[in-house]
């Protein structure tokens, strides 16, 4: 019979992995909930998942192509697709605690479930929007190379990077709603600091950026260019470090959520 001891906790906490594992089905159901609800009462439904990166691609090709010199739809879409996934995940994670405030106040469950489950719906969108990438590649006659097999790893690294930012910001948003307004701004800045719509040209900046190497590698895998593995490794390592820091901060802040939210 499990014995639970409740008392005041102070300072840094460890994450109870066993408890998290027991609630794994909740993670699934919360993600499914978001997916089911996402496009309820919309006329276009899941088409929105495609429309967002696609419209961005057109706009950027037409208006910014002149400055960046890049107008290839495959090149742009292959950058915008993982970027959209990243941005939507960060946004969803950050707001997940505040938008489920009622649950935080009235039910116990591992709070970490919320920001992690918030990645589910963007992941679904990502997979839907991926079909369009396949279509574009076929249309423009771009054949994938064996590097495309790296895709699961790249998706995983994107999730790690998104959670690294999102888990931290979600915990901070509980206390200060300011961070909700920081997110769109932060994403905007990162968008231009990351080689989403232009090729790598400041290698050190790309390596320091948790999404830099990952996005470049995704595009290289699709267009068949050589992958910059140094940049990928650096970005991946930075994303992992950010996630570790985020989890530590989250575990420390967690016990106050119900009183503050």
């Amino acid at each position, binding site marked *: 019979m499990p014995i*639970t001891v*409740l008392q005041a906790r102070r300072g840094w906490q460890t994450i109870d992995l066993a408890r998290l594992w027991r609630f794994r089905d909740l993670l*699934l159901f919360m993600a499914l909930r978001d997916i089911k609800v996402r496009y309820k009462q919309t006329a276009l439904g899941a088409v929105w998942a495609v429309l967002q990166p696609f419209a961005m691609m057109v706009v950027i090709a037409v208006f910014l192509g002149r400055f960046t010199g890049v107008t290839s739809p495959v090149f742009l879409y292959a950058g915008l697709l993982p970027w959209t996934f990243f941005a939507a995940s960060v946004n969803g994670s950050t707001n997940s605690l505040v938008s489920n405030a*009622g649950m935080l106040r009235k039910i116990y469950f591992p709070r970490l479930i919320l920001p992690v489950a918030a990645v589910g719906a963007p992941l679904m969108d990502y997979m839907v929007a991926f079909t369009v990438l396949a279509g574009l590649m076929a249309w423009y006659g771009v054949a994938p190379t064996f590097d495309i097999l790296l895709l699961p790893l790249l998706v995983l690294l994107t999730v790690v990077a998104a959670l690294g930012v999102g888990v931290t910001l979600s915990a901070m948003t509980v206390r200060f709603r*300011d961070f909700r307004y920081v997110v769109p701004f932060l994403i905007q800045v990162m968008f231009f600091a990351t080689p989403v719509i232009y090729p790598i040209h400041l290698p050190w900046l790309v390596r320091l950026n948790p999404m830099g190497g990952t996005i470049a590698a995704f595009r290289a895998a699709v267009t068949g260019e050589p992958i910059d593995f140094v940049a990928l490794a650096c970005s991946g390592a930075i994303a992992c470090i950010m996630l570790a820091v985020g989890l530590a901060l989250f575990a420390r802040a967690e016990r106050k959520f119900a*009183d503050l939210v």
Partner: protein
Amino acid sequence: MTTHRHQPVIHVAGLGKRYRLGGQARLDQTLPEVISDSMRRIFARKPRRTAPRKANTDFWALRDVSFSIERGEVIGVIGRNGAGKSTLLKILAQITDPTEGRAQLRGRVASLLEVGTGFHPELTGRENIYLNGAIMSMTRREIKAKFDDIVAFSGVEAFLDTPVKRYSSGMAVRLAFSVAAHLDPEILIIDEVLAVGDAAFQKKCLGKMQDIATSEGRTVLFVSHNMDSIMHLSTKVMVMDGGRTGGIEPVESGVKRYFAAMAEHDSTPLLDRPRKFSAGRPPVFDNLRILGPDDQANVIPCGGAMRVLIDLANMQSIQQGECGIVITNEQGQRVAILQSRYHANMTLEGTSITRIECEVPSLSLVPGTYQVDLSMVDNARMIEYVDCAGRFEVVFADVLGTGRLPNSKQGHLVIPATWKKAA
């Protein structure tokens, strides 16, 4: 093994919970202040300056609470509003940490503190059962195994594939309770949630709670304002008052003490009673009298006239005061509000007013006990709220001329009506 059996299921020692005024910790600090404070703390040579903690900004919702509960007991937790019942339940349900003391729980804990938390209005009943079960720590397989039982108990079979937003609140309660009741917890914690359901389902739930405790040897801790269900269901009770408790005691003595505490509360002058809310200014409500016809205090025959007399104090700074008399029934549901502005376009200003009076020519409430709260709003801002400033009884009177009246389970109001047989 035998020593194991004699260990209490719930053991609580010296439990306390402190809130900063306003119910939240240090929200008086803005983000830049927090950052500069922590920077100063990191870089300062001097030891960390302990901020002078003003004692009057602290509020202990719970203090020095100790008790033990044995296996298979059904404990009714009773006390006035603000006595700390919900805070205690929140700590035991692991939603919030105590500030001091500790609690030890043996076994799986399930809690139902609010109906339908975690229900998503857009999802169907079926989807919500899975989601809600998972929130309460059930695995997919467990939910699947109990699914039919949950549905059968809730009685919403016909609406399983309807979004929950189309459910009545009664149906949502039934579904939520059914999920919680089928959780097989060793410890079940229930706040006053059943008040929402209809009488028949309430009975069913109470029966289920009793089953859980007696035949399955599980422990139930529940809050209720309804002394009827407390006396029916509990094996022992715990009376809470002002965040403290004398511990677990027999039902009869506990209920008696609860009523005595209520009576004592009622005999304290209104001016001296604690406020549920006050905007940091001296109290304005000085005295309250509720009179029936023939000036009988606190008893009004159904359909009879009621006069409410309120003495005011410390009104100097009030510019556009609006006084509200809130009437709540025994189930804790608000029945009506008599508001000076709504009813008479009357606002209060300055020192000259010391007494106001509200008269209801015919009080058409069903017989029962009602609670009166008083509120004062100035310039659209709440400045004072007194919980349970008074109480009155509506007694039977033959207003319908048939010798019968609806009771409090059938409705709230007695509305005169004519009936005839159409030819």
